[in-house]
């Protein structure tokens, strides 16, 4: 009896420690980055442009490039993934076609991101160059859109699954058509899930460097639009960390990482606020 109590205690401790590791890791990383980077963050750092030889360089072009990339990628990927999820869950019966679609989605999810980069490079940068202007935010966003489709589709489909069938029946029984049911009941009800999917996607967009190196390029000037080549904060960080030999550049790298973390937090908050606004409007 006593032995079992002790075993219970040990097991509990082990499980607790195991789950604590993820929290500790997060805290350690953030504290580490902030401690090394925060001292270098200043208004100038945020608003200056970048030059490899200038110690007072800033990251404004990369900040703008990151926001551009996130925005354009979401604009492309969100409608596609909402429609795909609706097709899979509301329209298609379980048949050969949906099997193929699901297989394709799982396949997309397991492709390494550098392969997306290579693919994006050969398709969007090279073949579609007249449309995308080669290395550009558009090429990068198109590549990332394909990459984040699986995350978006799967998360949104999971949300659709949680909507009770009674709500669909209630809508049909009131003489609503399928499209009306989807737009008036299903999408508003799944708004929270769609928002979480978008937040997950933002995380992935912001954290990718490999595909963007090969599709959006490494130009450190202020982007003029979606046809400009641009660096995101992450690719900039990659550049600073791999080429930065001076202490100054290393400090810039950590400062960039600090801003990167803050940008992710800020984007998440904004998306949640927007969602709350929409939810209030919908009722």
């Amino acid at each position, binding site marked *: 009896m006593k032995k079992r109590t002790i075993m219970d205690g040990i097991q509990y401790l082990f499980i607790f420690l195991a789950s604590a590791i993820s929290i500790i890791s997060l805290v350690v990383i953030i504290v580490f980055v902030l401690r090394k980077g925060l001292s270098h963050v200043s208004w100038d750092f945020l608003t200056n442009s970048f030059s490899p030889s200038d110690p007072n360089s800033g990251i404004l072009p990369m900040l703008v490039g990151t926001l551009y990339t996130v925005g354009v990628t979401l604009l492309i990927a969100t409608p596609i993934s909402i429609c795909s999820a609706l097709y899979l869950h509301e329209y298609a019966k379980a048949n050969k076609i949906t099997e193929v679609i699901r297989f394709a989605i799982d396949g997309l999810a397991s492709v390494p991101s550098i392969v997306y980069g290579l693919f994006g490079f050969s398709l969007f940068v090279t073949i579609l160059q007249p449309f995308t202007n080669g290395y550009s935010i558009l090429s990068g966003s198109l590549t990332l859109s394909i990459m984040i489709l699986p995350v978006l589709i799967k998360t949104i489909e999971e949300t659709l699954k949680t909507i009770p069938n009674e*709500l669909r*029946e*209630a*809508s*049909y029984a*009131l003489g609503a058509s399928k499209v*009306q049911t989807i737009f008036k009941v299903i999408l508003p009800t799944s708004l929270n899930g769609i928002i979480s999917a978008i937040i997950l996607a933002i995380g992935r967009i912001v954290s990718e460097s490999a595909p963007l190196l090969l599709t959006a390029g490494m130009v450190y000037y202020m982007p003029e639009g979606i046809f400009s080549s641009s660096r995101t904060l992450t690719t900039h960080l990659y550049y600073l960390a791999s080429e930065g030999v001076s202490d100054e550049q290393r400090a810039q790298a950590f400062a960039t990482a600090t801003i990167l973390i803050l940008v992710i937090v800020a984007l998440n908050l904004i998306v949640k606020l927007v969602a709350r606004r929409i939810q209030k409007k919908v009722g």
Partner: protein
Amino acid sequence: MEDIKFEVKHLNLYYGDFQALKDLNINIKANRVTALIGPSGCGKSTFLRTLNRMNDLVDGVKITGEINMDGKNILSDKINTIDLRTKVGMVFQKPNPFPMSIYDNIAYGPRCQGVKDKKILDEIVESSLKAAALWDDVKDRLNKNALGMSGGQQQRLCIARAIAMKPEVILMDEPTSALDPIATQKIEELIDILKKDYTILIVTHSMQQASRVSDDTAFFLLGEIVEFDSTLNIFSNPKNKKTEEYITGRFG
């Protein structure tokens, strides 16, 4: 003679290989309450759902036979199910209001039909809630989320939502099985009032409920209608032995 609302002829329904309804023949009279009773799985809910074509939403269902509503076969491919469902409303077993305001719940159906005028919608909302005896309870909080109401109120809201379509028929699939006795009583009183204007079919597991609210009763068993008569006759003088056994609680 009363008017016949639904004339059902040789109705068969199959879920894949399983035959759920077997050669049903029944005439449902207008402006009366018809109760459908029988043990679980006897097909009474399935039958109810053929009357507004809700079974269309289920995969692998095959239906043969005829259901004539005011002389038109509603099982025909030519019937627009959207039109049909505006004429034949439905209230489900579990209250299922939409996660939106009380007002929007009621206005949902009319809006789907293209009613946009705020004045007309206001009128529909008020009259429907009054008809469902819910107006006094909720008139001050029409913009509150319907999910904040009690179960009984939610179910009356669902009835009001069905009434808002100005249907001819209201189908009720065990509307009180998820409610407490007081809420049940209110729904039953409501049914009694509503039958003046609507033809009501109610599936119920409660024999007392069937005898309290209905004018006619059909007893279902294993996909067949064993007996159909006035409620008075079914409960006081059942002709079939099975009916008698069921209503006296010997099985089911």
